[in-house]
């Protein structure tokens, strides 16, 4: 356990209590009163507190521009908090961007190997890891294809496979399926849940889609428009694996309705 805490990077405002390091969960994410004010004075986030435990799939849903993506940038270290703390082990996190962000000059195999390559994994090892990841996202047989030969959904699968290669205990999803058509998005949701079931990571998912939020998550936080605050939290009780037809379940509809009302209230 001591080792895990040594690896932990705590992003906090100067002068905050160092003793709170002890609360860092192994493989989890803690937002503790996080606030973010951009240099231009825009207040993006205000007093955000929640945790994501290993085996939890937590979704933050909110209107466009509410700062929900900023949350992930703070967690990943791409940006820094201006108040509060964000605690997690940043040594190995999976980050799935809004776009597939593939290297267009690399084929599927070499794109999936990229992150292992950046972490200096030996060639034979990273080849095997990448092949396994490509298999997991259902792209076996497409190893030699280049990104421009693939559909949007397939590119997103490559992006997922790339993040899987290092088996990160924490996965951050920044509206990864927002640009896909509805049926592809639903299929990708199911794929991501399959990966969640097999990899048991702590998942933090950002979206503006209510049905996506309810379908994927163990817990959903509703965020208000700027400055982003958490205005409601819902536990989603459905068991995994979740069947695609869950979307037509009355309980699913009831929860979606509640979320929708909370979002409307938040959207001032």
């Amino acid at each position, binding site marked *: 356990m001591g080792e895990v805490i040594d690896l932990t990077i705590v992003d906090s405002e100067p002068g905050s209590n160092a003793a709170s390091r002890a609360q860092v969960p192994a493989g989890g994410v803690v937002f503790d009163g996080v606030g973010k004010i951009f240099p231009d004075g825009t207040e993006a986030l205000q007093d955000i507190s929640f945790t994501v435990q290993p085996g939890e799939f937590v979704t933050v849903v909110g209107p466009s521009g509410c700062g929900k993506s900023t949350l992930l940038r703070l967690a990943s270290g791409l940006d820094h908090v201006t108040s509060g703390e964000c605690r997690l082990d940043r040594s190995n996190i999976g980050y799935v961007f809004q776009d597939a*962000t593939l290297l267009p000059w690399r084929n599927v195999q070499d794109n999936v190997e990229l992150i292992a390559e950046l972490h200096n994994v030996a060639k034979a090892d990273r080849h095997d890891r990448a092949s396994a990841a490509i298999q997991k996202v259902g792209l076996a047989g497409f190893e030699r294809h280049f990104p*421009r030969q693939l559909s949007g959904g397939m590119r997103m699968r490559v992006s997922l496979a790339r993040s899987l290669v290092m088996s990160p205990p924490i996965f951050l999803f920044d509206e990864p399926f927002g640009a896909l058509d509805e049926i592809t998005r639903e299929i990708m949701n199911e794929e991501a849940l399959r990966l969640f079931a097999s990899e048991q990571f702590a998942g933090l998912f950002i979206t503006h889609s209510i049905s996506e939020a309810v379908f994927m998550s163990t817990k959903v936080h509703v965020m208000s428009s700027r400055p982003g605050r958490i205005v409601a939290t819902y536990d989603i009780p459905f068991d995994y694996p979740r069947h695609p037809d869950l979307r037509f379940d009355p309980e699913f509809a009831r929860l979606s309705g509640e979320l929708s009302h909370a979002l409307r209230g938040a959207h001032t």
Partner: protein
Amino acid sequence: MTDLQRDQQISPPSQAAPVLLGGAAAHKRSSPAGRSLATRVLPPIGVFIAFVGFWYLYAGVVLDENGRKTALPYPHKVVTSFYDGKIGEQPGDLIEATRVSAVVALAGLAIAIVIGVTVAVLMSQAKWIEDSLYPYAVFLQTVPVLALVPLIGLLIGFGFPARILVCVIISLFPIITNTLFGLKSAEKGLHELFTLHNQSRFTRLIKLQLPASLPAMFTGFQISAGLSVIGAIVGGFFFQRGPRDLGNRIQLYSARLSPGELVAAIFLSAMLGVVFFQFFGWLGQRLTRNWHQPA
């Protein structure tokens, strides 16, 4: 895996491949599909025939015998001067001169590529380096190369190296600007991916920025390849010491009022430029064909 079959985006590779290959082949051809070879080749040939016809008309009707000797000969006289090189020289002299010019242009271009790419990489690493160097790159581009020629002669002599230096100066700017543009063209998301995994500037440069810059870089090389040939001709025109090249010949033929050889030398200069330009276009396309669609 039953859900996979529902994903209409995915078909087995064996089925997908021909469609994708067909797509790639269609992208390769810049002209719209369905245009036959004849409709693409005949119009420029027609223009060529009209041009040569006008030339015969001008040389035969406007000029007299003396004019054809001192100003513009018949086209077929130009063709024969490719191999019967008169004025007390060996046959095939123009071909040898073209070879020397090609060597000068290639040497200058190679040096310009090394310097240009290095400068662009340095500029991409820090804004202050870009700000410090850019005005001088523009200066190199805007100063007329003819104005620099006397200075170059005084500095490094009137020999072979001076010709190469002219090529370097004239071809540097497009390489710097295009490469720099290319180095900056990598998507923000890709940069963030590298930031996320704590990558050094060097790794970012090698694995992200340089590959991303290839299409723009080769556009720069292509423009500069044509310019470098112009530099070689201009250099040879003024710097006469050393092996004879096309610039030497042009200067000599104009001094001796040999319009046939002169026109032949001009034609060879243009052809050399076209070959250089096309070669770098082809090379760049070949290196990036898997992922880059030329505009």
